[in-house]
């Protein structure tokens, strides 16, 4: 990154390098949230609607996993994907795909835990109605996910926030390679280590602005959706 420019100038001039970093950050974090949602929402719904031995312990563990340390997840994924690791033949270490995998692991428990709570609350509300309509278990899960879709966006946004903000996992499995796996957070870490604190802070402000824009878009979509479906 050209260090003689300030972050403001970089943004105003739509610096191609900065745009590349921003778009990689967004792509990786959104892909991770998409993967995590595919696993996390059905998993949360399943735990919400079924009763099995050890369910309470399962919920406690799921809630606790929301606090998974990114650096530990990064290290575990690194060891898995390393050429000397069990999945080394995939050749994914130091690629954006590896970063998506690590972030998806971090985000899945957050989405699953929040989805479980949301859907369980809805279940209490609609239980009798659904029982009267004689809907099967899979139908119940699908109906409740659909009815809770607006509340579930909050779970997705919490997951996105986690993914976009973390540096510990992506720097280990991505390697912070210039123009390839450098994200906003790893660029901030790098500029800090180069002692260019104003640029690092500037990039931090850009990152926060992007997260606010994503949240605003989600909010707008939610409002529009609510109005549309009455």
């Amino acid at each position, binding site marked *: 990154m050209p260090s003689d420019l300030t972050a403001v100038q970089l943004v105003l001039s739509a610096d191609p390098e900065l745009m590349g970093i921003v778009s990689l950050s967004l792509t990786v974090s959104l892909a991770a949230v998409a993967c995590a949602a595919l696993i996390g929402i059905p998993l949360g719904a399943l735990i919400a609607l079924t009763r099995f031995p050890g369910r309470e312990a399962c919920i406690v563990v799921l809630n606790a996993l929301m606090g998974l340390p990114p650096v530990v997840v990064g290290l575990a994924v690194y060891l898995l994907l390393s050429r000397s690791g069990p999945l080394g033949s995939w050749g994914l270490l*130091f*690629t954006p795909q590896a970063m998506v995998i690590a972030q998806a692991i971090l985000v899945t428990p957050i989405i699953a835990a929040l989805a479980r709570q949301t859907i369980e609350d809805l279940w209490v509300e609609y239980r009798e109605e659904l029982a009267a309509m004689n809907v099967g278990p899979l139908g119940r899960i699908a109906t409740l996910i659909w009815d809770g879709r607006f509340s579930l966006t909050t779970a997705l946004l919490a997951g996105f926030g986690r993914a976009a903000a973390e540096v510990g996992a992506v720097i280990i499995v991505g390697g912070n390679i210039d123009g390839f796996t450098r994200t906003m957070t790893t660029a901030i870490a790098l500029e800090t280590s180069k002692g260019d604190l104003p640029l690092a802070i500037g990039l931090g402000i850009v990152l926060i602005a992007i997260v606010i824009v994503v949240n605003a878009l989600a909010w707008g979509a939610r409002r529009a959706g609510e109005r549309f479906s009455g």
Partner: protein
Amino acid sequence: MKNRMNTRRSLIALAALATFTLTSPVSAQDKSIVVSSTTSTQDSGLFGHILPLFKAKTGIDVKVVSQGTGQALDTGRRGDADVVFVHAKPQEEKFVADGFGVKRFPVMYNDFVLIGPKNDPAGVKGRDIVAALKTIKEKSAPFISRGDRSGTHAAELNLWKIAAVDIAKDKGAWYKEIGQGMGAALNTASASNAYVLADRGTWLSFKNRGDLAIIVEGDNRLFNQYGVILVNPAKHPTVKKDFGQAFIDWLVSAEGQKAITDYKIGGQQLFFANATVPGA
């Protein structure tokens, strides 16, 4: 019913998106190599200067993962890099002797400098690094150590040994091992007005100097040699040996050596090419 169909459709769309993002860029890694190198080559801006020249000549993309020398060699040992470019000759020779590297080529050198507060509270300014370290220890002046098995950390430990200070035993509250890169060590020294051993390249490009300045420089014992090694394809068949060797050949060629010599910050040369010097 319609609702359920919609849910299914959006789930399928999500799955398609995820699969797409996971699979599409894999084919982009054709003509590229991964080089595990040190924080000093990256933070000093050297790679930013020489890699575009190499790419223009050969079309090979060099992806640099910058770590401390110890970690960079580990990355090579695991087969996660094609080339290692580091600065700790004994560790590099061991890496080759253990069969993880093909051959070590000397590339360039720069030197270490002792950085400290401008007003030099321990009174160690001069050319003699060994005397300076002895005094710092005697006066328990604040000292920041990388503590991360990097090349600079190895050099620092070696200098304590030459100064006859058993740092593992003698370190007190004045000696702080931060376990991070060169930039972080300089940031810490800057914030706590401490002494720190740094490579000249990172120091010259470092921006958050505060009250720090060069205190000791020019001692022969502060010499810092860099070497480059191809990771052994016999150990790791996935190593891109042709591209990797092309990079090494270019670094030690007249053209590569000139590119290194030409890199300057504020008119000061950072690295001195010496691939042709025997025994470097």
